[in-house]
């Protein structure tokens, strides 16, 4: 039986439902491309309540995370969120997560919907050796994301804190439409935006979530703001160069292979997976995740072969049609020697061989799109 989030009735009435990570979720409401461009040009609203939310509280919270994550959480200031991964003993990625640090003894973590059980079991197991309490509060809270250049002015209308002062990757506690929330200036689209956690919102009393959801859509109607499904969520994160767990990263991939070196702080901490990660930093990883843009027509898809010198050399892990670039884009793993920017790679799209080029991410022009875009 697929699970339902707080907003399922809205999705069922307005969207095309698909199953994702055990949840019935909207794939689109109108059109993937329209929803995608709404986020790039005005704003889009996503229900991401299916993701897990975990609190990590106690005197030993920092020591615990210090061992758990390749990122040094002590270096992070209070009130800041950071992206990291949890690795197993072989350096393989268990999940990619966003951790919010309220203080050295108070953190919360957002985990992928498909990994909820696995992650909670892992967190609790590792936590046994530390003075810390790990609690899953997913089912008593909702999470919605408002993303796009208009997100700040829209949310400001119903938030009782000064959002213009909230820096990217920072979070605060705030009332939103009178409801007790956490507002985090984070997202999965590359645009400016906010992820809003509604506390005290159990699954069997979802009214609060629906109220805030409909309020935001009402404020945004006439300004091009749309509710967005998982289809647009995927094309947006791919255009922004962000990984999707289960496609681009998994337990057989290390953060170094995944080109996520920036989240590894190789300091004196003995974090889980360190030996393999350290070796790969020192000697290089045999394969690397790259981003590529099609030069010929065709859309690359997960599992398609990458050919080099006529032989299979790598594999596509994510692919889609980019509404901004108006061509196929994707991510793939290829041997290190052919992973440099500008490298031409052949993608086998069904029976045809099509050319592509290794490019930097985000795929789009960051002066025109994304949170760093030139202000008009």
């Amino acid at each position, binding site marked *: 039986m697929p699970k339902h989030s707080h907003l399922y009735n809205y999705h*069922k*009435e*307005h*969207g*095309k439902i698909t199953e994702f990570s055990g949840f019935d979720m909207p*794939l*689109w409401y109108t*059109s*993937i*491309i329209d929803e995608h461009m709404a986020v790039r040009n005005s704003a889009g609203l996503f229900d991401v309540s299916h993701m897990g939310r975990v609190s990590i509280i106690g005197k030993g919270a920092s020591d615990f995370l210090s061992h758990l994550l390749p990122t040094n959480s002590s270096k992070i200031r209070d009130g800041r969120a950071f992206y990291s991964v949890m690795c197993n003993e072989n350096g393989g990625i268990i999940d990619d997560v966003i951790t919010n640090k309220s203080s050295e003894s108070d953190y919360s973590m957002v985990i992928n919907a498909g990994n909820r059980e696995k992650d909670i079991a892992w967190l609790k197991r590792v936590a046994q050796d530390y003075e810390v309490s790990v609690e899953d509060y997913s089912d008593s809270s909702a999470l919605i994301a408002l993303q796009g250049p208009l997100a700040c002015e829209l949310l400001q209308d119903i938030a009782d804190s000064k959002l213009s002062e909230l820096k990217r990757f920072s979070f605060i506690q705030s009332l939103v439409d009178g409801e007790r929330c956490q507002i985090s200036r984070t997202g999965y689209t590359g645009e400016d935006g906010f992820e809003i956690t509604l506390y005290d919102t159990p699954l069997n009393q979802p009214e609060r979530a629906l109220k805030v959801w409909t309020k935001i859509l009402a404020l945004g109607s006439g300004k091009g703001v749309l509710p967005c499904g998982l*289809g647009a969520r995927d*094309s947006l994160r791919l255009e922004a160069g962000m990984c999707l767990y289960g496609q681009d990263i998994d337990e057989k991939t290390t953060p170094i292979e995944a080109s996520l070196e920036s989240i590894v702080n190789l300091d004196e901490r003995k974090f889980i997976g360190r030996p393999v990660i350290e070796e790969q930093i020192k000697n290089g990883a045999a394969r690397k995740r790259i981003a590529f843009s099609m030069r010929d*027509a*065709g*859309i690359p*898809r997960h599992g398609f072969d990458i050919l080099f010198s006529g032989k299979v050399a790598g594999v596509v892990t994510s692919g*889609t*049609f980019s*509404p901004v670039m108006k061509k196929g884009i994707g991510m793939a793993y290829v041997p290190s020697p052919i992973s440099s920017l500008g490298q031409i790679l052949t993608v086998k799209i*069904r029976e045809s061989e099509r050319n592509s080029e290794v490019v930097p991410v985000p795929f789009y022009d960051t002066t025109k799109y994304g949170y760093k875009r030139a202000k008009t």
Partner: protein
Amino acid sequence: MSEVYEVPDGYYYTKDHEWIIAKGSYYLVGITDYAAKMLNDIVYVNLPEQGAVLSSGQVFGQVESVKTVSDVYMPVTGKILKINSMLTQTPELVTNASYTDGWMLEIESNSFSEESTRLLNAKAYSDYISNLKSHE
């Protein structure tokens, strides 16, 4: 989400959601409004070479949307006279004008009458897709 699908009279339909209509000396082939809506956001249409001879039920091309690729099948045996080259620049025609400007193939066929027993008329196709919907 409830949806009404366009199923015009005068067209014949396949269970794979292609349509075919007689135009005197030739037939036009395309995909139905139901198929276009299921696919959503069609971005590429791959069509066969002019002159190709394909059998009923054989794959003649692919329709690619943001999320998926779908094969499209010949409703009857025939020879490709023309393909709709507008679809290269404007694949949205398949969604917005599925039965008119979104046509895919112009074919000639000698076997329409024998093979039309596997085709559905508008009423039969409407019933067919209602049943599909109710099992979703």
